[in-house]
Every structure is written in structure tokens, then in C-alpha cells.
């Protein structure tokens, strides 16, 4: 029911206020009747039951992905340090 999915706008029919959108290779049409701001080809929108609900804020999306990259790097760094510590403390060293 809450199936709303991110899609990319590939074409806009201004007369009917309908966008053609691409979702992982599936092309469909979605009504833009609920969107107040201008939508252009290349924008990302959230689609729900045949309507675009909102534009996806690209900056925020990229910022989130950046945060995830950082926490993974931090985690890998900590794992490396821990591995070295474990190695140093290893009783079986000759």
C-alpha cells in the first residue's frame, strides 16, 4: 500500500501535466497534479499510485550517501586498528 518509489523524469507532457518516468527500466506515466514546483527532465520524483508525490532533494540524498561512506570508512579503520591490536596481543607470536 505504501509502495512509493523513486523514479527519474524522462519526458513531460505539459498539456496534460503528465510526466513519463523511468523506474529501473520500466517506463510509465505519472500525473504531476500534486506537484507545485517546476519539474524538468532529469529530476527525481517519488511516485505513488500513479502520481508524483514530491521531488527528491538530490543534495540531501547525496549528503546521506556521503555520511554512509564516512561511517563505513570509519568502521573499516577501527577494524584495521583492532586487527593490529589483536595481532600485537597475540600470545602465539614467536
Amino acid at each position, binding site marked *: 500500500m505504501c*509502495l512509493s*518509489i523513486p523514479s527519474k523524469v*524522462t519526458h513531460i507532457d505539459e498539456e496534460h501535466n503528465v510526466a513519463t518516468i*523511468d*523506474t*529501473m*527500466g*520500466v*517506463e*510509465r506515466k505519472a500525473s504531476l497534479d500534486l506537484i507545485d514546483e517546476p519539474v524538468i527532465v532529469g529530476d527525481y520524483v517519488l511516485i505513488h499510485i500513479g502520481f508524483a508525490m514530491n521531488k527528491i532533494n538530490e543534495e540531501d540524498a547525496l549528503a546521506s550517501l556521503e555520511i554512509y561512506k564516512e561511517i563505513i570508512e570509519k568502521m573499516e579503520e577501527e577494524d584495521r586498528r583492532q586487527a593490529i591490536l589483536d595481532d600485537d596481543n597475540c600470545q602465539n607470536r614467536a
Partner: protein
Amino acid sequence: MKTITLAHGNGGQENNELISKVFYKAFKNDILEKSEDAAVIHNGELAFSTDSFTVSPLFFPGSDIGKLAVCGTCNDLAMMGAKPKYLTCSVIIEEGFDFRSLEKIVRSMKKELEVNGAIVVSGDTKVVPRGSVDKIFINTTGIGEIQKKGISSNNITKKDVILVSRDIGAHGATIFASREGIDMSSSLQSDCASLYPQVKALIDADIKITALRDATRGGVAAVLNEWASQSNICVEVEEDKIPISDEVNGICELLGFEAMALANEGTFVLAIEKEDASKALEILKRTNETASIIGTVSDQYIGKVVLNSAWGTKRFLELPTGELLPRIC
């Protein structure tokens, strides 16, 4: 249960219940109860199978009801290691059906028979009043000569490894997209294909095949659950090893389906003994680059299928239930 519902034809839970409570109960015998893709008869020399085809729409990207009718039955025979030889073809046609379409369907059947090296030796034609069937229903029954004995869904053990012959869910996704009038901007099409050539290649290379099953209604999920139950094992699948194309993923995202539950008509699941798994994979890859080893057999949860995720969680993959996609094959 007072009336039959569409769920009873889903290839999943309700379908199985209907078959066992009504048909198996009445027709009780050892061969039937083995529940294989095709019955093995005549001292293990022949395989015998039947299937009816009611798919709608009749023509869809990658195939049509005719090709499907031949593939469907020939594949069931191939799954028992049998070479398809003789088919029957019975049709029920709705009054008013277009002649040209009928010819197109029959031409398609002929082409597919050639791929399998089989011939139609008997048939029946009925025409019924408008509205009694939806355009055309086809039944095919086939006999094949078993080339490798002992292939059975009841014999899978921990020595076996689970493979899939190509990316999954293409048929189900295509039918749904066609039916819903969803435009595919890419190349999604049904995987409908005859499987005997691949099975022959595996038999010729002397691969230790334990079981084969094509993943039709109910998809790979149905096959694995049936195997878990018939062989009394636990099937463990690595979720990230399951090959799914972007296009099928797209349809699944859109419509909330799980690719594992979508029907296939040219994809089969294999249980191969461990030492032959990579050789089998290599042979399968000659036909489809996306063939993969997807899982193993254990005794963790007997009778169940477990999906292991890439981040350390697991869940059961259940037999599909409910009315997923009516008239899918």
C-alpha cells in the same frame, strides 16, 4: 472451502492443497504421489506429462501461447532427464477466434517442436460458443525417453548444491507488464525456452545430477519449498547470489512482488553433487551468462527454505500464497 477461487490455481500453497485434497486423494497411486515434474513409467524408461495453457495475453514479448504449450510439456519431460519424443495437442477454441492468430500459434508450436526434436502424433479440436473460454486454451501431453535414470526431487541430500540456470522471474514480470499495459523502455521479455538442449549437455558431460525442476507457477520459491518437503532437507539460499535482471527488479519494485515467487518458463533449478557444481555451472553459462550457484543443503530447519542476507540476517522463504498472477501460463 465451498467454491474454487483463483488462488487455487496459483502454483503455490492453495494449489497444492487442492491437488492433494481432491485429486491425489481420488487417484491415489505411488507414481502420482512422487509429485515429480513428469511421471516415470514403464520400468523407469519413459517420462509422461501433461499441461494446459490458458495464458493471457496470447502473444507477449519473447513468446506466445503456442511456444509455451510446447515448451511447458517438453520441459517437464526434460526435467526427468528425458528426451521429448511424442506430443498430443488438444485445443478448445472460442467461437469467433481469428484464423490468422490460430495459424500463427500453430506455426510457433511447430518451430518449438523442432528445437526439442519432438512431433505431435495425436490431437483434438473443439470449438465452443462465445464466452465459454477466453479465445483459446491448449493442452499438450508428452512422452519422452529417459536418458539418465534416477533424477528425482525426492533424493536431494547435503551432498548437493543448488543452482539456477539463468536470471529469474522474467516470464511473470513480462506477462504482468503486458497485461497492465506497462511500457517497458528496455528489453524485458519472457524467458520461455526449451530446456532439453541444456539438460542434454549436462547428461552428455556426465554431471552427477540429483534433481531438476523448472520454476513455473510459484517460481523458484515454490520449487525450493517442494524440494525441502519432498527430500526432507533444509535449503539455504544466499540472497545476494540470486540472479535477477534490472528490468525484473524494476517490475518487482513497482508492484511489490518478490522475484522468487514469479513464474518462469525457461528457467530451471538444479541440485547437483558438490564436486560437479562448477562444471555444471560452466555448461549452463554457455546458454545464459547469468546462471548461478545460489545455495546449499543443510539440516538446520528440515522442510524449510532459509534466505541468508548479505548483512547476517536470515528468514524463511515461504511457498507463495494467494492470487498472485492469474492466467500466467
